[in-house]
């Protein structure tokens, strides 16, 4: 299946639920969906195109909202994008569809504070246990100090 | 007269061929073992302490003696302190059994071969105590493995030694050596298989690859040795070196004709010592080669191996001896 066929099938199945879609490069498909149908779309992709593989989940702080990108697929990469509110970042988990997504969701939870509803084991994976609550390193308002390099002269 | 004899005995026990001599060659053997192992692996091995690094084991020993001695809070203090001392002194005593300058060791009595076997088992029990007393998870697993391993190799080891005793008809090391003076060495007789079994079991006794399961570094840190440091570790390591001499010396006494060989009249002690050293080094090299050849077995595979192969073979060997006699 080529990337265009795949995108057409997705458009057919979800119609107006796909806010935006594009093929920026060969074998890469970008679709933007609302938060509510994020899980549904991923489920559709996994079941209908026989792509049980998730590459990773990227979280990006876009200012007022956090963008979640799920990169799916083996030969064709399908980037399913969705935006969630930064003050109340919540989204459905996809670990029940793809068990391998567990660690990626935990990473996003840890670094951006996104709450994945229904995740069986949502706890810290990267930051130390005594890292202050409510501080998320990959959000833009977190600005680490840059210590001056130690100079001998 | 009595005083002179007494003084000689003291000299024998403490200087030559007793503790001092044994201590020196045990360190030397550790160096040979390490150097040969390194050579097989295309490395250099110990290099800088002394010529060709020959003083490296001594340097390690001194360094460990000088290090801080830590006793964990949760450990059983008495047992934790005593086990290194015991294992060291037991091994040192055991080496007195080895015939070096003549056909009998400094310590020689009827039935000393049973004593020799008992000491090997005793050492293993001390290992178990050491592992348990340190109250550490890794040590506990290591101690448990040591005992499991003992169940595996001990019976074949005993059977192979008893086979020798049966062959000769005495339970005394000096008699076994004397027997080989008149007959051929036992390894060339019906005991060749026994020697092979002995060497494999000795490798397990010494906890070396492929049977270094109780202190498998990659799995349980250092096993039963994990919590030991400083002087205690130094003593344990020294005890291991002594055990190396003891095990190879026993193999020489039982299978390779002890320290015997062609000599010039009047110079027997010198030649005997020389032969003893040469023969033990040969056994040592065999042990080192085995160490370089294999990967470590898992504990269940080890026990399986010794009950499925080693034990039937040693029983077969036992019957072979009965048939020959």
């Amino acid at each position, binding site marked *: 299946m080529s990337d265009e066929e795949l995108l057409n099938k997705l458009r057919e199945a979800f119609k107006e639920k796909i806010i935006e879609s594009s093929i920026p490069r060969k074998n890469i498909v970008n679709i933007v969906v609302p938060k509510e149908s994020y899980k549904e779309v991923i489920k559709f992709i996994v079941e209908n195109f026989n792509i049980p593989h998730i590459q990773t989940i990227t979280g990006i702080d876009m200012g007022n909202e956090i963008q979640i990108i799920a990169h799916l697929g083996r*030969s064709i990469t399908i980037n399913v994008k969705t935006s969630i509110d930064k003050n109340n970042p919540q989204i459905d988990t996809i670990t029940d569809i793809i068990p391998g997504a567990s660690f990626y969701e935990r990473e996003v939870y840890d670094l951006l504070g996104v709450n994945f509803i229904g995740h069986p084991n949502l706890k810290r*994976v990267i930051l130390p246990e005594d890292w202050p609550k409510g501080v998320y390193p990959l959000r833009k308002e977190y600005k680490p100090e840059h210590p001056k390099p130690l100079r001998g002269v | 007269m009595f005083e002179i004899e007494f003084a000689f005995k003291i000299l024998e026990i403490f200087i030559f061929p007793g503790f001092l001599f044994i201590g020196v060659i045990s360190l030397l053997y550790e160096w040979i073992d390490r150097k040969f192992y390194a050579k097989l*692996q295309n490395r250099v091995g110990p290099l800088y302490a002394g010529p060709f690094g020959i003083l490296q084991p001594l340097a390690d020993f001194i360094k460990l003696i000088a290090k801080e001695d830590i006793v964990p809070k949760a450990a059983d203090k008495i047992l934790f302190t005593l086990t290194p001392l015991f294992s060291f002194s037991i091994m040192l005593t055991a080496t007195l059994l080895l015939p070096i300058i003549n056909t009998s060791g400094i310590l020689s009595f009827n039935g000393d071969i049973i004593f020799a076997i008992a000491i090997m088992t005793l050492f293993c029990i001390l290992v178990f105590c050491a592992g348990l007393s340190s109250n550490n998870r890794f040590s506990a697993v290591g101690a448990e493995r040591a005992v499991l391993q003992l169940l595996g190799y001990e019976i074949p080891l005993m059977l192979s030694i008893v086979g020798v005793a049966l062959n000769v008809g005495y339970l005394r090391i000096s008699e076994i050596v004397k027997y080989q003076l008149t007959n051929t060495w036992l390894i060339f007789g019906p005991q060749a298989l026994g020697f092979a079994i002995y060497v494999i079991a000795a490798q397990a006794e010494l906890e070396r690859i492929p049977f270094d399961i109780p202190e498998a570094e990659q799995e349980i840190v250092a096993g039963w040795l994990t919590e030991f440091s400083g002087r205690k570790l130094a003593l344990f390591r020294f005890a291991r070196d002594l055990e190396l001499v003891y095990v190879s010396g026993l193999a020489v006494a039982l299978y390779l004709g002890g320290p015997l060989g062609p000599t010039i009249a009047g110079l027997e002690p010198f030649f005997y010592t020389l032969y003893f050293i040469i023969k033990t080094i040969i056994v040592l090299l065999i042990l080192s080669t085995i160490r370089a050849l294999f990967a470590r077995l898992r504990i269940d595979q080890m026990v399986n191996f010794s009950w499925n192969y080693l034990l039937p073979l040693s029983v077969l060997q036992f019957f072979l001896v009965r048939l020959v006699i």
Partner: protein
Amino acid sequence: MSSFTIPIGPQHPALPEPILLKLEVEGEYIVGVDVDVSYMHRGIEKAMEYRNYIQNIYLAERICGICNVAHTVCYTLNVEKLYDKEIPPRAQYLRVIIEELNRIHSHLLWLGVAGHEIGFETLFMYVWRDRERVMDLIETITGNRVNTAYTTIGGVRRDITSDIEYKIRKTMDIVEERTKYYKSVAAAEPTILNRTKDVGILKTIDAINLCAVGPLLRASNVKNDVRADAPYAAHDEVPFNVITYPYCDVFSRILVRVDEIFECINMIRYCLDHLPKGPIRIKLPLKPPKGEAVTRVEAPRGELLHYVLSDGSEKPYRYKVRTPTLANIPSLCRMLTSTGDYIVKIADVPIAYASIDPCLCCTGRVQIVDIEKNKKWIWSWEELKEYSKKEWEKS
């Protein structure tokens, strides 16, 4: 039998890097496992947002020491996608050569480590000795043994001369011969077979569901390789086979990696034979246009993903790295847990753990910097002693 927990790590002789495996054991059997990978965080993703694209090449390289070429190749391909420019074919071929050399070195390193984990020191020594030839070759080509700094945005930094080409061919012959020997040893040595066969089993269905990547997945009989599925650099022109083995155990992983070395050697030879003429790099401006790009590369450990979001400035707005080891950790947990008649023993942990070829400095990338005013992260010696004493008394 009551179970108790054995912590393996974060400091442990079997682990070259800090990871904490909390093993629930009953006697020698493992019934549960919990993994903590949080000991190696350097905040590279955040640090990349503070540096320009040129500086980030070398930062990306330092995500991992062993598979550094995979990271630089992935980074540069990723940033080049933002510019949308063609890279000269000679540079593409050179990238393949250096990447495959890196893969050979990584797989040989792994083979040695695998030998070490099962207590086969001799194999470890020999394999690492022969790996040194590949390291010397990498040094000759790039100027450094480990951190190659070879690929750059727009191409590669150095060309290979005919002298170097001769050296590569000669070394490849030696490495091929030695690798054949190690393969025969691994297949014939009974103690290796005992320790690796039917150990650390990851069934095909589990490997797919848990999204395993790289040699781990291929050893579970799934034909998957980014180089074949979504070719990058010159991989669409260079022929190679995707190696799979159906045994799903550690032995299968050894075979996959060893056979991959042969494939790498053939690919390098092909690249040298068909090396196109022309420039090796093009100059690109410091500021890429706005846009985003996602690139996947087959690192020695598996599929590696880089994602970049550019806002048109000289620094990336967001850079995301997903390393193969992180993707393989769920599979590791699955491998280490006994279920049904499948039993894992403590003695199997080091080799099963090593069989995913873990690289934890890849896995953690987040900086620990002071945020609470009263909480210090840089400690004096006395404070550290005090803290450790307190923690020790607590436990």
